[in-house]
């Protein structure tokens, strides 16, 4: 279940209360998020839509512990992350969050394998265990035969698949995707959405995704609109319910 009225009963995986975010640019103050509430249960797939500049990336960054709100709280799996220090936030991120960006953001000097391995370098896993995890993740995204390739040797769709593998290889609590298909053509976008969909359906992952693309958002079980700093329910069209 997903709620936006701030009345969730406390069993939600992600709980956002009265989230406020202001940016100050010179003398100008931009009030991006204005008392936003959200409850997301484990295993949900939520899409956030909204015009450019509406604060979608800002919301995702806050949920992923990359930034701190002006006020309000975010609780994930019992941890109130808005109270954590910068240092503990980083290690929290390593354990709980998998990020997928519009521009893939792979490290160009590392191979597909090494890119996927990055989050595992922060764990206590042995080399052999890391290898096993990376190979499994790359198999899920269908890139077993490209493990030794560098990002520049891959197509955009393939790069994004590597990025997805990197995001879930360490088995995070949830995946955050910021316009994962924004830079891809229709065919590749569909493939990416298929993979994300499978992660939710077959692997029980929780996914929060920002997207412009109605075709992509359509895959989500819930679609929310970000408008004037708060979330609004959208008329649910199609699959999942």
């Amino acid at each position, binding site marked *: 279940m997903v709620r936006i009225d701030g009345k969730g009963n406390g069993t939600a995986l992600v709980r956002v209360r009265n989230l406020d975010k202001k940016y100050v640019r010179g003398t100008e103050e931009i009030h991006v998020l204005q008392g936003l509430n959200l409850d997301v249960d484990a295993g949900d797939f939520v899409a956030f839509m909204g015009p450019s500049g509406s604060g979608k990336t800002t919301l995702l960054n806050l949920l992923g512990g990359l930034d701190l709100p002006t006020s309000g709280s975010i609780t994930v799996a019992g941890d109130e992350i808005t109270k954590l220090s910068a240092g503990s936030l*980083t290690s929290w991120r390593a354990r709980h969050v998998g990020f997928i960006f519009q521009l893939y953001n792979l*490290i160009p*000097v*590392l191979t597909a394998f*090494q890119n996927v391995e990055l989050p595992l370098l922060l764990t206590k896993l042995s080399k052999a265990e890391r290898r096993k995890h990376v190979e499994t993740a790359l198999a899920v995204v269908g890139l077993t035969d490209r493990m030794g390739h560098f990002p520049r040797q891959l197509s955009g769709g393939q790069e994004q698949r590597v990025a997805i593998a990197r995001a879930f290889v360490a088995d995070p609590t949830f995946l955050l995707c910021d316009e994962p298909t924004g830079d891809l053509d229709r065919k590749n976008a569909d493939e990416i959405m298929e993979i994300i969909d499978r992660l939710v359906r077959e692997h029980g992952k929780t996914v929060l995704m920002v997207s412009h693309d109605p075709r992509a958002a359509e895959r989500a079980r819930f679609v929310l609109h970000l408008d004037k700093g708060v979330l609004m329910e959208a008329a649910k069209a199609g699959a999942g319910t």
Partner: protein
Amino acid sequence: MKSFRLVWANLRRKKVRTTLAIGSFAVALFLFGLLAAVRMGFRGGADAAGANRLAVINRVSLILPLPLSYRDRLLKVPGVAAVTYASWFGGVYQDERNFFPQFAVDKDTWFDVYADNVVSPEGRDAFMKDRQACLVGRALAKRFGFKVGDRLPLRGTIWTGNWEFNVVGVYDGNRPEADTSGMFFRADYLEERRAYGKGTVGYYVVKVGNPDDAVQVTKAIDALFENSPFETRTQTEKSFAASFAKQMGNVELLIMTIGSVVFFTLLLVTGNTMAIAVRERSGELAVLKTVGFSDRRVLGLILAEAVLIAGQGGFIGLALAKLVIPRLSRALPMLGVLYVSPLTFAAGFVLAIAVGAAAGLLPAIGAMRLRVVDALRRI
């Protein structure tokens, strides 16, 4: 370090830039090796000097002589174990540019005091028997191709005329950096042939039985000859050699200045290289942080990269110096024996690493402080 591969991969990303950065370290550390070798060459005398040897010179000036008669009086000073003497000859071999030091020494006592000049028993025998004998240092022999049996002609400058010597042996030092660029011949031959200065010597070298007595013996000797026409100044051979080196000008200061300037430049150049690298990669650094790399780990990545550049460059430069400088030294013998000691190597390497770390520090702190959200927005 599991992230080592990432550091290594980053180094290889801009090969030209990395090569240039490593090259600057190599050049700087080569220069360091050379300067250290030259400095050691100048101080070589001082460092090789025995703690139990005292030099007795004319109080007025090193170049003024002392009477030969002092020899027996010196021997009677309590604490003195042996006395020998030498005179600077200053002859020219073929051409002024072929400069090397020549000393007339007392054949009977020289080796009692200078056990560190190693000569074969035959060479020593011949030196005792032949009035015109001379011993050449290993480096000198190599320089001019002198062999036992050769005639060595010198044109006198202090005592004019043509002097001929028979090479009867080659002496070695008992340490690799020992100076073997000179030549010894017999003082009795000089005494017999010279037109003036008869009955004098250039300076005495006194060996004390116990190095702890050195200070006391020094005072006793200078007191003994006080108010005589030839007052003495006695000092440990170390300070004697050092004052000898000082006449070459303040080489040390020059070397330190050059060295500091080079390393400061290196610091700036490397710092700049690393700063550019961090700026270019801010997006990637942000991704690493997003994934969960701590600020400290990111700092470590950048520092490791700088240190790796410094370490590689430093090693190459020092290795090159170790290889090339002894050859160079043979071509420029007036500088004495130049070589890169293990200590110089180690000190240079540590210095390179330190400069690398210092240069990487500011960019690394920048990388550490980089805010993920800002950097990601800039991509």
